[in-house]
């Protein structure tokens, strides 16, 4: 399987892991230097704003603490576009852009679009398997209702 194909599979696997709240699997696909950011263009301020920024340890803490919190009880489902992958010339990193829609389904079965945006990812590709080293979520949706305890 080509590196490009393995990266595409990984991006989908990350989405499934988050949908299914399999956080250990999600983190196992991230490098030790992993950084996760949700960035939003805020027209009210005329600039980008960061709504979440975590390193790997902070993501682990976030996932560990979830059970202590009151949060939405329905299900999130991430619908991804086909990732656009570019492998760098040195073969050690790759980048990918993937647009997403997150659908939220209430406990009564009513679904709605929760968020729209794009993942800008950087992968480490030197080892046996590619690892997600950096994800910037460029979020377009700015009214998230209650918000979410989970990353996108």
């Amino acid at each position, binding site marked *: 399987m080509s590196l490009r194909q393995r990266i595409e599979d990984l991006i989908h696997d990350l989405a499934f892991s988050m949908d299914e709240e399999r956080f250990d699997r999600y983190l196992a696909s991230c490098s030790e230097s992993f950084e996760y950011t*949700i960035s*939003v263009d*805020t*027209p*009210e*301020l*005329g600039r980008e*704003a*960061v*709504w*979440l*920024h975590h390193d790997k*340890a*902070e993501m682990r*803490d*976030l996932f*560990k*603490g979830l059970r*202590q*919190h*009151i*949060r*939405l009880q329905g299900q999130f489902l991430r619908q991804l576009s086909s990732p656009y992958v570019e492998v760098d010339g040195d073969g050690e990193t790759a980048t990918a852009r993937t647009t997403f829609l997150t659908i939220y389904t209430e406990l009564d079965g009513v679904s709605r679009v929760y968020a729209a945006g794009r993942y800008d990812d950087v992968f480490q590709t030197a080892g046996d398997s590619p690892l997600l080293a950096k994800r910037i979520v460029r979020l377009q949706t*700015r*009214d*998230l*209702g*209650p*918000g*979410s*305890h*989970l*990353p996108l």
Partner: protein
Amino acid sequence: MSRSSAAYEAAPPLSATHFIDNRIHASEALWAEESEKILGRTWKFVCHESEIPELYDFRTTKIAGKAIIVMRGGDGTVRSFFNACPHRGSVLARLPRGNARQLTCMFHLWSFDDRGRCITVTRPEGYARCGIEKSDLGLREVRTEAVMGLVFANLDDGAPALRSFLGNALENAQPVLEAEDFEVFHYHSAVIEANWKLWHETNVDLYHEWMHSVNRRTGIRADGYFDRRFLDYGNGHLSMEPFRVKYENYPGWTAREDHTLPGLTPGEFRFIDLFPNTTIILRATNIRIDTSTPISPTQTRIEWRGLAPKSDSPEVRALRVQHHNQLWGPFGRNLAEDIIAVEGVQRSIMSETSLYSLHAREEGGKGQDDGGSRAYYAEWSRYMGRRASDPFGSRERLDNAAE
């Protein structure tokens, strides 16, 4: 023991100040009355001065459902106007912010200057016979005043001045807001499925902090939490004595010892609730301001801002943003829980399974006393001329109750 229908529908056996009739959160008629008597007559926080720093900068918002444009004029004065062309009503400024020496309506190209004066009417000769002059066609100005960088507007031309309305209510924020120039680094808004008062009631209600994992660990278990006294500034404005939050009690978080805002001590927490719908919360390193715009009795748009000193280095600003987002960002550990809670309350009210809310806790004005929410609803009652516990004089089914 569970209760029968009659027992459940009977008013609670409490003083009339110690409970409310939940129809005040659902009735269309009361909502229309509130819009006129409260939201149309009180000062509403509309933006921070840093959002319109340059001459001719503008920001759009709403008060009591009315579209407003807040603008810094060429003379530096901040004024507000209805964001509607007096000709045929087209919206003048369609963006949330911008800069314009004159506002030109896209529909028929009439234009207005920074004082709200009509300066251009397309093909004015067409109005010669009816005698309308440009001087008759200015924008509706909305009273606007600022204090400590906070810009307020009031639809009521006859309302008392802002400083009279606020009294000393900002004294807990004054040492901070006057020590530095602040700017807004975070803005987001959301429509919640709940009455506007439920949000501001929650900001006054400290008893609900048991719900939040973060607040249980960092606040309720911290020294002095229950010793704080409510401070009642009159006119429905409230605050509470400060205390030190133990942020380090939450797994993975650190104490807020560094880069404390001027006027605060490390970890210090303060809040100010301004009647009817603005809250300022100071948490050691950053500030949150909430304000709301009711859309209907059961829907409210809430706006949240985060403020920090303009003088921050990029590293310090990143720390403040992180601290802000930990609790208050859309992906934080606190804000979502409040919204989930009040939306649940609203569902119970609309299904008429929750008829009354109790505000009966008394802890000597300290800790988790309900004195704050009682003062809030006392002020609501003063404006509305009716008790929040007995808004209609009889218990009738809501005309817009959920099936």
